[in-house]
């Protein structure tokens, strides 16, 4: 999919004016934490449950190469075919070739963030193979050609009027309706025919169990079960960090995932595949391909700070409580992943230079790391990215912004570390900051630091600073 991470500020400004999204996000922000908390309370000890899931994920990331090999070996023993794709291109080529060899004209897809990441739909379409997203939210965003608004509910922000229009235009719906249930029904009818005759189904993977070679999908709609039952060929795409050691760990993560993600004890369907169907079974895939996508992850695996990002289980909780995401929504993040989880993962996959806004769009409040089932410390990682980005910037540069930065910060640095210069600065600016309309004037300034002054209130400098008073008191004695 198109990468727009460099347009964060621009898109965020636009989205802040989108009244429909605003209303939705406001309700969502208030409603979701309550729902989640209630669901987590069904654990005997919610804190312990989160600690346990974080421990499981930490162990997975520490032993990733070993667990992945074990998973691969057991999946092959079960009769699956495993393909390790180094990058998006390799993964897409493999799947496109498979579709061509099997002579399929279309595929049905279960929601999968990794296929968004690698741009699989586009690769298929370029080769004349139609890809039908079958998760209702993904189906809507696909018809509208929009990026996902949320990693769990990709179309939750789309007004029903717009869905009604696009369903009439592109999904064979006859009469307009604003009722979500009727809209869902129209999508059901349209996609049912696709499921019925589909020859190849493509799904993501929530967990891959090393000990048994089993892949697990968690869903509510049944579209993934359809895509794994009806066609002769099943392709399941996973990123390498999806692996877990054993079934017990997987079950605990599923419990935490469902509660964190949608506030459910368990999603309607959890399906676990160990290889293709057995010969005598009438449905299920005759062949099961598991594509394990790297796409840059091994590159940062050796860096112990960056690899933390691989602990994510894609529950979406960090989005739902983030003060930035719940204002700007998912579009500004500019790629498959949004919110705090996207802010830590995207810069590692795309590079620090073109994702600068992502790791700066954080208030360091820490709400995300408090609820993260993977135990990721997002603010710490984003802070680290900022440090790294400063370090990689050349010391001498003649770009306009860099020159301005140099003078501002070099001067500022000189001033704050020299007591006499500091005192001089305080004396000079005191009266200015105590003017009645100082704040307003400062906000209007178009100087080089306008990004800073526009959004902050300048504190008044006291009539007498602590130092000055201290000196006075000492003199009196």
């Amino acid at each position, binding site marked *: 999919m198109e990468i727009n991470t460099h347009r964060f500020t621009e898109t965020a400004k636009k989205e802040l004016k989108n009244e429909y999204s605003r209303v939705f996000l406001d309700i969502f922000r208030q409603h979701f934490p309550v729902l989640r908390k209630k669901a987590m309370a069904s654990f005997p000890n919610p804190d312990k449950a989160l600690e346990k899931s974080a421990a499981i994920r930490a162990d997975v990331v520490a032993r990733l190469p070993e667990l992945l090999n074990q998973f691969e070996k057991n999946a092959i023993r079960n009769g699956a075919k495993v393909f390790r794709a180094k990058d998006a291109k390799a993964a897409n080529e493999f799947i496109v070739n498979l579709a061509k060899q099997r002579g399929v004209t279309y595929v049905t897809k279960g929601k999968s963030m990794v296929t968004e990441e690698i741009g699989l739909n586009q690769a298929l379409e370029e080769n004349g193979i139609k890809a039908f997203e079958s998760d209702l939210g993904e189906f809507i965003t696909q018809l509208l050609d929009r990026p996902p608004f949320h990693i769990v509910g990709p179309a939750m922000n789309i007004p029903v009027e717009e869905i009604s229009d696009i369903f009439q235009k592109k999904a064979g719906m006859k009469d307009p309706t604003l009722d979500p249930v009727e809209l869902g029904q129209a999508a059901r009818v349209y996609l049912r025919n696709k499921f019925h005759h589909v020859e190849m189904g493509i799904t993501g993977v929530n967990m891959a169990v090393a000990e048994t070679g089993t892949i697990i999908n968690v869903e509510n709609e049944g579209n993934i079960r359809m895509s794994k039952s009806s066609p002769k060929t099943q392709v399941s795409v996973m990123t390498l960090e999806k692996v877990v050691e054993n079934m017990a760990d997987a079950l605990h993560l599923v419990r935490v995932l469902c509660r964190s993600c949608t506030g459910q004890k368990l999603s309607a369907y959890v399906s676990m595949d160990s290889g293709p169907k057995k010969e005598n079974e*009438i449905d299920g895939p005759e062949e099961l391909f598991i594509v394990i996508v790297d796409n840059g992850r091994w590159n940062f695996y050796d860096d112990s700070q960056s690899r933390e990002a691989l602990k994510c289980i894609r529950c979406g909780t960090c989005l739902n409580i983030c003060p930035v995401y719940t204002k700007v929504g998912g579009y500004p993040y500019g790629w498959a992943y949004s919110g705090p989880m996207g802010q830590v993962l995207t810069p590692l996959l795309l590079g620090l230079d073109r994702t600068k806004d992502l790791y700066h769009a954080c208030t360091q409040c820490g709400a995300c790391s408090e609820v993260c089932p993977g135990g990721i410390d997002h603010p710490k990682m984003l802070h680290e990215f900022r440090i790294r980005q400063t370090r990689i910037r050349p010391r001498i540069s003649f770009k306009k912004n860099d020159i301005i930065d140099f003078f501002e910060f070099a001067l500022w640095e000189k001033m704050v570390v020299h007591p006499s210069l500091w005192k001089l600065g305080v004396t000079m600016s005191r009266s200015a900051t105590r003017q009645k309309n100082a704040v307003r004037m400062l906000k209007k300034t178009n100087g080089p630091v306008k990004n800073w002054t526009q959004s902050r209130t300048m504190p008044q400098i006291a009539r007498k600073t602590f130092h000055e008073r201290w000196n006075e008191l000492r003199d009196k004695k």
Partner: protein
Amino acid sequence: MIKKFIEEVILQTGQVHQVQDYSTAGEILAQIAADHQLKSMVASTDEVIRPLKIMEWANKKGIEVKTADNFKDRASFKDYAFGQADAGITGVNYGISESGTLCLVHDINQPRLASIAPLFHIAILTADRLVPEYEQAVENIYTGSSTPPSQVSFITGPSMTGDIKAQSFKGMHGPKHLIIILIE
């Protein structure tokens, strides 16, 4: 455990009919079919459903029931499951009380589409198959066997979605109604 299981199923809008034996189960099944005008069904042939003697039952009640072995291939089975069957009726390997979940092990006798393609899923469960947590079911299924089943499904309530305006409703792609007949 039974009480907890039933409570959880009802929370997900599932229905539970408690009966004493298979013959009463047959009567309840006939009642359900009549209430919802279910005229054709695709059935599994697993060991839980077998004592129901569903073919005899179907002949008596004048309802069309087909099982996987009535079809010559995948395509014709799919045509029936997607195109004709009003309901799918299956046995259940384990009922899990922790979340009111049905665990189905798919094999030659438990085709996958029976519990996902039709609008109604009617599940037959015996009380001795109830376990408190997922772990017991999964351990029984996966340990000790060198070839794990091709697919295992956990089913908790009917198919659902909340993708439009976060408003949730049942029956998105799979069954809209989940009805469990629990034989004690």
